[in-house]
């Protein structure tokens, strides 16, 4: 599967499913918890992400339940999804390392310049 650059929301949806299958609201709540309420997914946004992830085989339907006469569908991460997430983590980590090295180099250069 070619690597996709994931949006932040998609990244957190995938991360929320690492602990086990979740239904729609479970993903919204888990993403909010993971980001300290910074990202509050709307239903339309969530299902846009779920559709795209399902279409590339990153997640799949786990099971269906009827609770209080309401339909709940649980989704789980596939092996493809785990690989996608791992690649994205590696990409972000590499970016962070580059920026960190630059900052550290600048910090050591500054005293030398001021002298």
């Amino acid at each position, binding site marked *: 599967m070619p690597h996709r650059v994931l949006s932040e929301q998609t990244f957190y949806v995938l991360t929320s499913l690492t602990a086990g299958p979740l239904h729609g609201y479970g993903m919204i709540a888990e993403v909010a918890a993971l980001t300290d309420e910074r990202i509050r997914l709307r239903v339309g946004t969530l*299902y846009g992400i779920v559709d795209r992830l399902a279409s590339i085989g990153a997640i799949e339907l786990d099971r269906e339940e009827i609770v209080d006469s309401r339909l709940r569908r649980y989704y789980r991460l596939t092996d493809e999804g785990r690989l996608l997430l791992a690649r994205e983590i590696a990409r972000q980590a590499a970016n962070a390392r580059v920026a960190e090295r630059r900052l550290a180099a600048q910090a050591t250069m500054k005293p030398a310049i001021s002298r």
Partner: protein
Amino acid sequence: MDAGWLRTGAPTAPAAQSELERRYRRLLRLLPRHYRDEREEEMLAVFLAAEQSADPDNFDITLRYGSPSWAERISIAALAVRLHWLGPSNSARAALRGRATWLFLSVYLLLAAISGAIGVISTAVLLLWPPDMVNDPLDGAGLASISFAGVAEFVTSVSSWLGVGWVLAWALGVAGGKRALNGAAAIVAVIAALAVVRWGMTPYSLWTSWAQCAFWFLIALGLFAANSADREPGRREPLTLRLPHQRRLTIGAVGVAAVMSALAVASFCADSGSGVPWSSWLAAATGGLPDEGVLSCWIVLIAAAVWRIRRRRAVTPAPIPDEYVIAAAAVVTLVFVARIPWLYDLMQGVLFGRFGDYTSLITLYLVVFSLLVATVGVLAIVLVTSAVRRWRALPD
């Protein structure tokens, strides 16, 4: 917040349909039918659970009197635009539709930015430098006539700010990147909202004005929806509205804006001086300025002529990518439709009073239809036919 309890817990929703549920189902009607059949119950359950979690103490009141928030409405509308246009699959047609839409948005924003710039420049010239001075601009008296009233009128003129808005939206779109494109979408949405207020306050406003507002909202939504999607595999550069040959296009756009601004001012000055024989012809040629419709007519016709000439000269003519054909067909069809009321009004002014009522009416329809087909219509028919043929050739 721990979401784990949700796997065993239950969001308590009443069995009978509440007002909130009814409103949300109405909102979901924006989505395609096949998608609703599959997802409606699931999405409704998620929405109600989220509402209950947001304010559990007052959930009964929310059920009875609440309605989906604006953020929720926008997210569903964006999903609907994406589903209606791109479809749920990753087919060749869906990819082509996506590329053609993006190209169309890029071209439309460029045209709107040019017409916005023309509006701003010509308004500035006319307000800051009155027409009687423009008639004799070389004697140096014009600059002395700049008045504070003119400056104030320009600064408070809504239309001049709308023009600035289009230019800014285009510049942000070309700069690219997630934030810049969301900014461009927000600016277009504000322009559309201001236009709604403007036409709402105008008595007897035309249906075309409302259609234009709705179209602008769609443009904003399209930008937002495309920008919120994951990027295509292997694509590393930021999403941008930059077109091929962007530098040449920018120089050309500035040139077109300058020439058209000069024409608009000249047309106004010619109109204000009575008895100038060419004023009506100039006004007709630049009629509706600043207006991306007229501008598109000229640009599309010139581009088509240049393309035909270059193609004849080329030894092996390069094929045009499908998305270019589809986007061009969309632009020209839009121009074709937008020009109908303009041409109708123009010909009505020319014909009525010179013949009997019935003769005038029949002549009016015949002339308007023939002129449209003879000008932009032929191009529209050729392009649309070509676009449909290429589209059909693709696998589902």
